[in-house]
């Protein structure tokens, strides 16, 4: 800690502040590049059609302000429904990925039994091999189960998709729980189920949060499986709904911009709330 404090100080004196300014310059330019496209879309969603074309970079003023795009989107598509579908699918999948993932991770790390290593490798392979490659048979399977065009099909696929990484990360954390805690409970005749639900599960809460973020984003953003398994009749997720809506009203700039804004803003708000958690998860080495 002491080194960290003194040496860099020397560095910054040696190199002067020019280097710092340059570093900030580069980072600011890149931050601008990352944010500007999104910013342009959002400000134009609140402008009249004329203003969108006349001066795309201007902020909406009282003269140019218009919500007509949003009105059109809400009128012409079942946006609220798509949003609700995405919520249901994401939350249900997330719940099962966390619960079942923690249970599998506990079984694999806590007990010795035949096939343990094989099952662990089976799950590990799923981290690298995308579930999409099995789409042909997944669609077959879902139509045999009469689940095509249902949200259930999506939830099942997303649970299978999320489990490998969840098992991997949660195993790492469960392994770190001191043996004494569990052994003490066992001496008191506490059942294995109770050990898992009342001792292990609360202790891995931070890991669960990390897994939650990693699981949630791909599910919310996915287009492939909604496109193939639940493409219509009110079962679209928000990503698919927006894609279909824009395809249909591609020339209506107000509507397109509004639809994009409606898809972007909730994610950005959630991201800003949970970014600390997410970045800590990414940088803590949980996914190495």
């Amino acid at each position, binding site marked *: 800690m002491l080194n960290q404090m003194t040496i860099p100080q020397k560095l910054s004196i040696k190199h002067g502040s020019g280097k710092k300014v340059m570093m900030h310059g580069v980072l600011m330019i890149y931050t601008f590049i*990352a944010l500007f496209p999104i910013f342009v879309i959002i400000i134009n969603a609140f402008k009249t059609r004329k203003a969108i074309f006349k001066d795309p970079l201007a902020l909406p003023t009282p003269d140019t302000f218009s919500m007509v795009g949003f009105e059109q989107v809400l009128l012409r598509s079942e946006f609220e429904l798509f949003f609700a579908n995405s919520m249901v699918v994401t939350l249900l999948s997330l719940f099962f990925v966390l619960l079942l993932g923690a249970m599998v991770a506990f079984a694999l790390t806590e007990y010795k039994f035949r096939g343990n290593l094989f099952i662990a490798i089976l799950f590990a392979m799923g981290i690298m091999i995308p579930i999409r490659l099995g789409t042909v048979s997944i669609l077959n399977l879902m139509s045999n189960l009469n689940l095509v065009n249902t949200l259930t099909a999506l939830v099942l696929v997303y649970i*299978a998709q999320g489990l490998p990484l969840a098992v991997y990360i949660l195993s790492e954390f469960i392994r770190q729980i001191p043996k004494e805690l569990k052994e003490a409970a066992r001496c008191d005749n506490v059942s294995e189920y109770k050990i898992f639900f009342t001792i292990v599960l609360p202790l891995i809460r931070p890991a669960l949060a990390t897994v939650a973020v990693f699981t949630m984003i791909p599910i919310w953003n996915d287009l492939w499986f909604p496109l193939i398994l639940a493409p219509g009749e009110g079962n679209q997720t928000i990503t698919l709904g*927006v894609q279909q809506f824009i395809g249909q009203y591609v020339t209506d700039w107000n509507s397109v911009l509004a639809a*994009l804004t409606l898809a972007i803003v909730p994610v950005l708000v959630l991201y800003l709330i949970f970014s600390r958690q997410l970045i800590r998860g990414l940088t803590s080495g949980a996914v190495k």
Partner: protein
Amino acid sequence: MTTSNHKAPFPWHILFFLAPGLLIYVSISVYPLLDTLWLGFFEEDESGQRFFSGLKNYQTLLFDAVWSEPFWNALWNNTKFFIVHMLVQNPIGLMLAVLLSSPRLQWSNSYRTLIFMPTMLSVVIIGFVWQLLLSPIWGISENFLYDIGLGEYFDAWLGNEGTALTTLSLISVWQFVGIPMMLIYASLLNIPDELIDASVVDGSSAWQTFWNIKLPLILPTIGMVSILTFVANFNAFELIYAVKGALAGPNFSTDIMGTLFYRTFFGFQLQSGSITMGAAVATLMFLIILIGVAIYLFLVQRRMQRFQL
């Protein structure tokens, strides 16, 4: 005790913990993948009757002109897509990570949070955003280029056969640069301070310290970023589909393995879909990804271990 369950009653609790997750994973991920690999060896006649045909699908895909031309085109395009990511996304990610990890940098957290933002959004949404921004009708990019004196270089990049794929690759790079940035940043933070201090005390310049100390130590992370990029790229679909549709125009110049798989499986316009042919394409994608992962595991990682502490 659990460890002495040899003569104990059947360990129901293990089954309880393991079965639900394993059942869903095996039946919806493992089995469909194996079934797809198996289906690739079959053919279907008009009545939907399936019969075993060995490697015929693969022969058709790789050598029959009608099929092989789109296949090799998609594979080559996908390779270019990957190369652009490796040459642009990962170096920029590395540079940003190095800048962010410099000690006592103000607003470091804010930069990180903001630069990572596009990564959170759906690829589909990003595709549409850039389609609008690059549209000659709206002219926003054109005006911007004129403002900085480069106006004459503007073109309908997404519409031209020669530039569409590179443009789409760069859009994807723009969106995902946050991932290499974060992972490399994390591994830079893990380098022990003593090593850096020793190098500074020895009189190394910042560049020498980076080249001789930091870079070798983060090579395993760069290897991991590369394989993640590889798998994601050869599995990509959404961006092309959102911006260019399943036909991956103009004239299939943006067709990659994901869009080829989609068209083969579902059919598009005049071409009817085929389950078995789709399975064959998926199998080839599986093999490509497997080869990539194998190269990573056996070659890259083994060589990099020398550098690890």
